[in-house]
């Protein structure tokens, strides 16, 4: 049994922007103790779940939530997942104060910071890479610059899942 993704979208304010953001949010929620029911493997944007992607597609096809197509200013397309916040079904797990605070913190981070945070956690705890900082820079390069790595670590500390 996996979490109800439309409920997550509602709890996150009714909108989650981008597939990368959604995937990394669910991964991080899983790590802070939400039994998401999804298994993750490593892809080029970090931890990723095929099962989650499939459930999201089902939710869109059966109109449990919407997927809107938008474009960045340079025309690059992305998807926004939307769920009606008026509905209140099955949201109990996300209504807990700790979960709510976690969702807020993740929604205030950029998709790149979420990608880095999820990847740091994956490297340190799943792949158990000793020097995860060096490995992070090797894999993510420019994305770790301009304070983004520090923001990702701060987010993990907020979520109480930061590596030592």
């Amino acid at each position, binding site marked *: 049994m996996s979490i109800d993704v439309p409920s997550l979208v509602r709890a996150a304010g009714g909108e989650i922007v981008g597939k990368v953001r959604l995937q990394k949010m669910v991964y991080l929620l899983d790590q802070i103790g939400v039994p998401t029911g999804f298994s993750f493997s490593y892809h080029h944007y970090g931890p990723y779940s095929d099962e989650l992607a499939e459930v999201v597609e089902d939710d869109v096809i059966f109109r449990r939530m919407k997927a809107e197509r938008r474009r960045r200013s340079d025309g690059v397309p992305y998807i926004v997942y939307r769920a009606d916040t008026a509905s209140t079904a099955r949201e109990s797990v996300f209504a807990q104060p700790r979960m709510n605070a976690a969702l807020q913190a993740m929604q205030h981070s950029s998709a790149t910071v979420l990608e880095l945070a999820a990847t740091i956690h994956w490297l340190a705890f799943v792949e158990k890479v000793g020097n995860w900082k060096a490995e992070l820079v090797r894999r993510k390069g420019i*994305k770790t610059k301009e304070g983004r790595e520090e923001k990702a670590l701060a987010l993990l500390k907020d979520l109480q899942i930061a590596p030592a």
Partner: protein
Amino acid sequence: MIKDTSSPIGSILSRAGVEPNEVAELVEAETPEDMYHAVVSSSFDADRLDYVERDRYMTGVGAGAIDCEWLMDNVRVAEIDVSPAGDNGSDAAYRHSFCLLYKAREAAEDFLLARYRLYTNVYLHKTTRGFEQLIAALFRLIAESVDRDEPLDGLEGDHPLMKFFSKNGETIENYKALDDVVVWGAIHRFAVAGRGATQEIAQRLLARRRPHCLDVQISFPQEPELQRRLKRRLGEEFKEQLNDRVFRDVAKLSLYGEIGGDDSRAQKRLMIQLPDGKLKEITDFSDRSIAQSSNERQFERYYFLNESDYTRAQAMVAAIRGQ
């Protein structure tokens, strides 16, 4: 293999004045660091330019000619945002990569479409994928046997395949031993002296006898709800046989190629440089002749070793159609 000091690749690179480790790092990097990375992995990398023409020629596929010379004439280098799409540039991460001038836009559309057609007609063809499923299943059976520490009829314990799938056996040395002759030799032995599924699969591979294929999208074109219903029923009905006699194959394709994760890699987006120097993603032009790059085409097939299982699956399709 580039880093391996016993490999000839490293010494060839060294003789050419290139540091092998730098090449390995370039190939391994997930995020582009410089323009050279674009040669290895970008919307317009050397590999793509090569295989789009070569595979089309070698497979005899009619669709998908490209104007390589015109494309090469119009390649430029620009700073491209490699961050995940969604933040609308608020946390952009720029790196040098390739783009194409506006006057090559149509040739670029043809290039993307040519790749797309190669995927639909060749790489994701149901027969190609069916045989890939058989090979994968055979390897899985070997790995499971090694994991259980059980002998496998038809293959000696010191066979390169057994060594590769043994604990800590995924070494470069063991990998290099797995050439075509070794693998085909093992398939021949399984066909003669194997048992159960290993023998069945090996015999199919040797006789080019493809597994029965049920294509979910072709069963219900343009009807995603019915596709999902079929998928669920097949999943429930063949839960016990999955990866044994029944194999599920799923792939997603966008204009930028096969999607293996959250999204197409940022560096694979094809950007067009406008006369004022600004960049625009190729599918963002109102008069474009290609589909949106965010459109995803799903390929989902079930392959069956037994005809009786296949017949049951076909009956499910008919039941969902209401026949």
